[in-house]
Structures are given as C-alpha cells and as structure tokens.
C-alpha cells in the first residue's frame, strides 16, 4: 500500500510537536533577522563610512549557502570555547543570513523617503535620533512590511536545513520516523503539506496586508 | 449593385460594468471618406476607434466592414460572435495610429515597418524593405530608417508609426488624437503627412482630433460626440459654420475660447 492512513494519523502528534520547534526557530530567527537587519541599515545611514563594509558583508552572507553558514557556526564556536546547542547555532545562522536580506529591504524603505522629510526635520531643529524615530521610521516601515513578510515565509521554508545539524524540527523528525519504520511516504508528504498550507495562508495574509497598506497610503 | 459602405456601426453599444460608454451607435462611412470625430473628453471617441480595431469587444450590435461582419460571423444563416480567425481576416483591412505612437522600442524605424509585413503577410524581406523604404520616404524619414524610436523626436516617431501602419496596406486608417502627445511645433509635420496620405492613397480615414482647423479643412464629414452618442454630424463648414445643436455650439465655443 502506498499511503497508510492509520500510520499517518499515528505519526501526526509527533510531527505536530516538531512543527512547534520549526515555528519557534522561525519566530526567533526572524526576530533576530528583522532587528539585526534594521541595525545594519541604520548604522549605514548614521555612520556613512561603514557603508562599503556593510555592503561587502551583506554580499558575502547572501552569496554563500545558508547550510554552510549553519555548519560553520555550529562547528566553529566550540573552537573558541563557546559550545552552542544545535538549535541556538542554527537559529543564529538563519537569523544572520536573513538579516542580510532584511537590511536591504530597510535600505530601500529609507531610500524612498523624500529628502524633504530630512530637510524639514532639520529646519524644525529635531535631533537626528528624533527624526529617525518619529519621522523616518514611521514612514519607511509600513510600505516594506509585505517585503519583510515574504522573507519571513522564505525563512520558515529554510528551517528544514536545521535537520542537517540534527535539530528535532519537522524534517529531522520525519527523517527519523522514516529510518525507524522504513516508511518515508507519509512523514515526508505530511511535512510538505504542512509547509504548503502555511505558505498559502501566509501568502493570503501578506496580500491582504498589502491591500490594507495601499488603502492607507491612498488617502 | 450599390456600393457597400466601407464601415457600418449597426446599433453598437459598449458598456464597462454599469457605465454605458456608447449607446446604440449607428454610423456609416463610405469608401474613401474622411471622417473626423470631435467631442469632449470621455464622450467615447477613442472607444469607437478601439472597437473598430477590435481592441475592445462590443456588448450589442454589429460592426460591418465592406459588407462583411467584423465582430460577428455567419453560421447557418445566423450571426454569431466572431472567432479569432475571422476577426484577423477582416481586421487586415484596418490600420491604426495611436496617440502614444506605440513604436516597438527594440526595433529600428525600418524594422518597425517590416515586422508585420513579414510575419503576418508573409512578404519576402527584400520586398518588405522596398515597401517600407518608400513609406519612410513618404513620411520624410528616409535618412532615419536605422534609428531606434528613442533616437527620434515625437513627431518623427509618429510619422514612423504612420508608415508602419501603411505598410500593411489597410483600406481603413484610424487616427486617435495622433498629435495630442506632441510639442506644438511638431504637430504640423504629422498633419502634413496625413494630408499627403489622404491625397496619394486610396484610404478611408476615421480620425479623432482636437485640431479643429485640420478637421475643417481635411474631412468630408465631422461627427460631434457627446455622452456616447453622435449629437450632430455634417460637412465641416456646416457643423463649424452653423452648428444646429446647442451642445455643439457650447463645445465649439469652449474650444475656440481656449485658443
């Protein structure tokens, strides 16, 4: 028999627990990516001479595979006496990888703010920090929320890479079930369906978010 | 046999959702006739041309070209909506020049003029080039034939667009405000080409224009559109000289006022 429903239901609770690990990794990884990305983008504006260094750094991170970066962090930290568990090392790598992408999104958001906004703030004698916090960020962030949302979904779909360092997320759990029972069909397909469902739902959410934002800016 | 009109709109309506843009339009255009369409913005002038070019579908009525239905075809003695093959057969008689030129930006003036003759009419390259060279000469752009659209002024681009449309040897040419996107000093050269086309080629022409002087001097008949209907039509000296309809008078007054 190609598909065994009883077996599929039997492994569902195990996979559900693993899904929670995947989602945790996603949320922590993205929180890291979003905040580190923002820091990179802001530093770039605040301290102009860092621009080139940050560009090269971002290019380096984006040009090399996430899987290698995960391995690197996981195996390299112990060399310096810092032992990270697989989950921490993996999420850190994912967060840093996506921070590089997010920083470019923020940058585009800041670039879209009209120069007049900065000039008006200077004319009002606002400090640069106040300008940033009260004038620039509130205008720059809403339009880029959908782009950030897309990276959140992309990041989520890369969490199976954590299975390479044996984090017990969805893919790793499915693999273990497969190797113990010699049935790969149900666990792998269920994992695929889970990702598909989450992706379709998030795509719909992002679309309605986009509509909402469009309507707001149209006014 | 009495000669068929070149074009006949038979009770044609066009709606966008709840908005009726054209309401039961009836219009006949004779072989070789030059007809200008004037009227306020939004009155449906462009829509008339676009329906005839089959860029828009129609909701009611039938459009005929030389006695054959364009929007429909006969099947078992009844008119049914035309399929693409039928539309393409009849549409071959019609050419159009657009307000925004719509030249192909990745092709030179010459390539713009030979593309459709080769791909659609199946002409040999050499023949298509000879025809295109004649037409580019007619519009006064022989020496610009290897230029890309981005290297030409608006007036030159529009003249290439006219040559390109002529290269398909249409019997009917449609012009939709072809000088509206041009700087004022470039309008004359395009109008001159249209005059020449009218003199030298056996063409039926239907043009939407805001150039009242040109409409008066060039056309055999002027139609004034208002709110999706022909409000008044007639020979140019009558319509411009002694408009019967109050709306026409108001419109002409406003246009002349604006200069």
């Amino acid at each position, binding site marked *: 028999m190609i598909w065994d429903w009883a077996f599929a239901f039997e492994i569902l609770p195990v996979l559900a627990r693993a899904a929670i690990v995947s989602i945790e990794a996603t949320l922590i990884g993205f929180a890291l990516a979003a905040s580190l990305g923002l820091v990179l983008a802001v530093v770039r504006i605040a301290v102009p001479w860092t621009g080139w260094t940050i560009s090269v750094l971002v290019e380096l991170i984006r*040009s090399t595979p996430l899987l290698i970066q995960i*391995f690197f962090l996981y195996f390299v930290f112990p060399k310096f006496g810092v032992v990270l568990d697989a989950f921490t090392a993996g999420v850190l790598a994912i967060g840093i990888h996506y921070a590089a992408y997010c920083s470019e999104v923020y940058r585009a958001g800041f670039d879209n703010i009209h120069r007049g906004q900065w000039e008006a703030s200077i004319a009002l004698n606002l400090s640069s920090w106040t300008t940033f916090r009260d004038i620039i960020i509130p205008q720059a962030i809403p339009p880029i929320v959908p782009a950030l949302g897309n990276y959140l979904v992309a990041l989520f779909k890369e969490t*199976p890479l954590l299975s390479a360092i044996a984090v017990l997320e969805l893919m790793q759990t*499915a693999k273990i079930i497969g190797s113990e029972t010699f049935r*790969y069909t149900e666990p792998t397909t269920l994992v*695929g369906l889970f990702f598909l469902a989450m992706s379709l739902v998030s795509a719909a959410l992002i679309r309605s978010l986009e509509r909402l934002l469009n309507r707001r800016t149209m006014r | 046999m009495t000669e068929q009109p070149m074009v006949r709109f038979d009770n044609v309506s066009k709606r966008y959702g709840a908005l009726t843009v054209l309401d039961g339009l009836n219009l006949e255009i004779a072989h070789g006739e030059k007809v200008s369409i004037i009227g306020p913005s939004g009155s449906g002038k462009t829509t008339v041309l676009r329906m005839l070019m089959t860029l828009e579908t129609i909701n009611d009525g039938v459009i005929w070209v030389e006695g054959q239905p364009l929007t429909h075809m006969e099947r078992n003695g009844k008119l049914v909506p035309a399929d693409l093959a039928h539309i393409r057969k009849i549409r071959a008689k019609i*050419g159009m020049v657009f307000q925004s030129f*719509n030249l192909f930006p990745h092709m030179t003036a010459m390539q713009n003029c030979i593309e459709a003759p080769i791909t659609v009419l199946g002409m040999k390259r050499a023949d298509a080039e000879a025809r295109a060279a004649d037409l580019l000469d007619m519009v006064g752009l022989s020496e610009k034939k290897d230029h890309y659209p981005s290297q030409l002024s608006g007036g030159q681009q529009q003249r290439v667009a006219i040559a390109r449309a002529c290269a398909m040897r249409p019997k009917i040419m449609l012009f939709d405000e072809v000088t509206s996107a041009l700087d004022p000093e470039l309008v004359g050269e395009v109008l001159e080409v249209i005059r020449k086309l009218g003199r030298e080629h056996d063409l039926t022409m239907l043009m939407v224009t805001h150039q009242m002087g040109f409409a008066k001097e060039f056309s055999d008949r002027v139609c004034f559109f208002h709110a999706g209907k022909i409000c008044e039509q007639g020979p140019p000296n009558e319509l411009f000289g002694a408009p019967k309809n109050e709306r026409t008078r108001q419109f002409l007054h406003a246009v002349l006022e604006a200069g």
Partner: protein
Amino acid sequence: MGIRTLVTLLVVALGVIAVLATQEAYSLFMPGLLQGAVLTVEIAVLGSLLAIVMGVLAALARMYGPAPLRWLATVYVEIFRGTSALVQLFWLFFVLPQFGVTLNAFLVAVLALGLNVGAYGSEVVRGAIQSVARGQWEASTALNMSRPQMLRRIILPQAFVAMIPPWGNLLIELLKSTALVSLITLSDLAFKAQQMNQNTFKTIPIFTLVLLMYLAMSLVLTIGMRLLERRASLGLARGRAA
C-alpha cells in the same frame, strides 16, 4: 554594488584562495574541495537550465494556456513555491521510489532544484510580460499579428530585459541551494566540506575555503548576469541619452 566592485571582490576571493592553497594547513583540502566544486557547478548549471525552461513554460501556460494546462501550471507553481526545497529534495529521493520511480541522486538534485527555482521563475516571467506597456500589445494587434507572433517578436524581447536582474537573484539562490544535495549522498562541495571536517576537525581552514569558493561562484554568476543585462538593455535604451 557596481560591477567594478564585484570584479574586485572576485579577484580578491580568488587571490585569497590561491594564497591559502599554498599554505600547508589548507593545501591538504584543496583537491577534494575542488572535486566537490565541480559537481556543484554541474548541478547548478543543469538545474538553472531546467529552471529557466520551466519558468517560461509555466508562465506562458498560466497566462495563455487552455484551462487544464493553466490549472496544471498553477498547481506546479504553488506546490514548488509553497513547500521547502529540502522537503522536495527528500520527497523525490525517498518517496518517489515508493511509487516505482527510482532516479539516481544526481537526477533528483537537478530535478528538485530546477523545478523549485522554475516555480519562482514563472512569477518573474509573468511579471516581466505584464510590465510591457499595454500599447505594445495594442500596436501588435493593430498590425494583425497573432498571439504567438506578438509574444515572440514584440513582448518577450522587451520582457527579457526586465527579467534578467530577478533571474540573476534566483540563479544565485539555486547555486546556494545546491549545498542541500549533500544531504542526499551527493559529494558536492558542501558534502566534501562536512566529510573533511568530521575526519580532521580542521573546521576553520575547511570552511574558510568553502565559503570563498561559493563566494567566487556566486560572483561569477552575478557579474555574468550584469553583463548580460547591460547588453540586453542596450537595444532598448540605444541613444536614450542622445
């Protein structure tokens, strides 16, 4: 980043690799890693070709195909975009044989990566086609061209220019995703790295070399796409400055 900077970066990356290759601590790993890199390039090239073909076909099918084809293409795109690349790789490798189709790992790698990126690519192709001005369609209609003639001669050549940068990004993603094939037993660069790391624990030299190699490959791809973009836009923008 400008093309000059990218070339500089590439030269630096290759230079560092060359210098490290002369160091005793590093030279040990070079032959094995290079072997892996060859497999990585093979999979990336074949995967890219498949991705481009699938991207164009799926986009055209979704936009202009008859209903069943449109439906099929939509399902393809949604499934391959909606699930994770690694899940697809595992599914083709472990599950497909249960349905009686056993492909070797290399073929699975090319298929999974090509189909995955092709699904994203179809959106790029679709967007680029839709970005061509409506007037271009209308002018082609007025010249009585058929749908295929319009697409081939007028629309796609213009859409092509708009497609190059996003395709460049997608192919970089594909190149990076080739590292995943190490998880289905293929001895690509990532596999060699991990294998050597387990055997020698010389983590820093090995991963430094590997990261530099991936960087160099990515840069070659990025620079190539930039040059292609420059050439392609030449036809469209000729004399725009004049």
